[in-house]
């Protein structure tokens, strides 16, 4: 967020910037007029459901594809330029590695791409690769493979790290341990862009969250701000009122029909419950609970048309 004009004038652009970028694949609008800046030294979480455009945003910043329109820069340069890339490391979704190379060989290869890579021992330490350096990649477990991918991202000691859905498929324990690795990167002053579809993960790691849905930025702020915007109450009741009518009540953020019941998310429960009872005295099975993180996140990203299915 821009606080004053001087910020605009004097602040150098962040390590990675999307300026009014659109990218379509045929009729699929992966990104639509998205502006996004990854600022130096921050951990930025790009939060959104599958298909929101997160991977496209990362691919553009890494120069893996060109934007349909708009401008993309990495350290102020074209993301394809070797100089810019020497300051970036990436952990990409679904990135496999040749099965028949050893962990040590893979790291040796990737270290050679960078002007001042981390010493091997530091990479081993950072990615917890003790004891598996001589193993072939194909013989590793899923968690170990993920650690190798992390090692390939950090071994060049880059200034900015792109982590695309790094914890997908990890168990709870590996996820926690991965989080602590990301935190130590942040402490070391690295800039991190992390994509995730877990609000919990964004909350645990990020300084700032950008919510992406259907190719557009739908919210932006600190994790606390995002949570505050989504925090609220979930009201459930069997009622004859139509979802459309309930949706228009003040304080209601979303309405979903669940069988004969309506599930309503609201900032505060009391005024909404009072209004519901006034409009439908025959209302039954009333239930009020705190909205969980996932419900809150859904409320942020669920498009209107999805709610209107009924």
């Amino acid at each position, binding site marked *: 967020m821009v606080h004053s004009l001087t910020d605009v004038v004097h602040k150098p652009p962040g390590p990675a910037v999307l300026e009014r970028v659109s990218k379509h*694949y045929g009729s*699929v609008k*992966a990104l639509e007029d998205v502006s996004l800046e990854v600022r130096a030294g921050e951990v930025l979480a790009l939060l959104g459901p*599958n*298909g*929101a*455009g*997160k*991977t*496209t945003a990362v*691919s553009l910043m*890494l*120069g*893996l*594809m060109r934007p349909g329109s708009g401008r993309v820069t990495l350290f102020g340069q074209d993301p394809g330029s*070797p100089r810019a*890339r*020497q300051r*970036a490391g*990436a952990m*990409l*979704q*679904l*990135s*496999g*590695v*040749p*099965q*028949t*190379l050893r962990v040590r*060989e893979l790291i*040796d*290869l*990737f270290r*050679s*791409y*960078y*002007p*001042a*890579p981390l010493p091997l021992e530091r990479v081993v330490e950072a990615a917890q690769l003790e004891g598996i350096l001589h193993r*072939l990649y194909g013989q590793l477990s899923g968690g170990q493979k993920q650690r190798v*991918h992390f090692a*390939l991202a950090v071994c*060049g000691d880059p200034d900015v790290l*792109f982590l695309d859905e790094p914890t997908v498929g990890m168990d709870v324990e590996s996820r926690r341990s991965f989080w602590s690795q990301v935190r130590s990167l942040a402490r070391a002053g690295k800039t991190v862009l992390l994509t995730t579809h877990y609000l919990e993960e964004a909350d645990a790691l990020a300084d700032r969250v950008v919510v992406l849905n259907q190719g557009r930025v739908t919210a932006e702020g600190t994790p606390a701000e995002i949570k505050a915007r989504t925090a609220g109450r979930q009201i459930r009741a069997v009622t004859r009122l139509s979802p459309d009518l309930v949706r228009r009540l003040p304080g209601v953020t979303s309405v979903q029909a669940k069988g004969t019941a309506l599930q309503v998310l609201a900032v505060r429960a009391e005024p909404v419950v009072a209004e519901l009872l006034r409009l439908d005295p025959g209302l039954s099975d009333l239930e009020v609970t705190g909205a969980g993180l996932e419900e809150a996140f859904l409320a942020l990203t669920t498009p209107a048309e999805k709610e209107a299915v009924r």
Partner: protein
Amino acid sequence: MNTLRIFALEAKYEFLKSWRLPIYSLSTLAFPLMFYAIFGLSFGNQNAGPVNTATYMLATYGAFGTIGAALFGFGVGVAVERGQGWMRLKRASPMPPLAYFFAKIALALLFGALIVLGMTLLGTLAGKVSLEPLTWLRLFGVLLLGVFPFCALGLFFGYVLGPNSAPGVLNLVYLPMAFASGLWVPLEALPKALQSVAPFLPPYHYAQLALRTLGAGRGENPWLHALALVGFTLAFLALALWAYRRDEGKTYG
């Protein structure tokens, strides 16, 4: 960071990666040698033009082997690395893109050289091949220099085929193309219709240049063969570029 070192490491690991994959190293190296042992050596006493069959087939089966190494090294290699996402990770890295292709060319040349050396040993020890060192060197040089069109063809297939379909489809291209170009049996022994198709296939020109170093072959103008090979290389590279661009937009989310 040192660019030369990156190129060297890429080539080194490209080799280790393939060498440790028996299905690749065995089929690329062993099949052409086996074919040469069966077809080239068992008819070794007959003459094929000015040289004996074992010598003639050193050129044609040598071409068959080097084409395979180039076609499969690029075709299967690129298809698999695209499929597994290794290519994407490397493209996002600061690796100079040329290093990737250099490594694959180096591997095709190395495997090609091993094949031709192996066949020469077989032919000399177990057959009637006896070549002047200089003649052999010229054959060896032509066989190695001529692999580029097949590298480019493999590159194209690597971008259009999936990792699982690549070996099968490539064999469907490779084997008939080799046969119709006179790499298995001399062209003169093929039906007339096939003989007229051969000049439209790149292995024909490649094999004719190789045969020429032995004083065999059809005796056509070598520059025309060379020109045809350059033309095929450019055409395949253009196709590969098209396929690469088509592939670019496929991953999204």
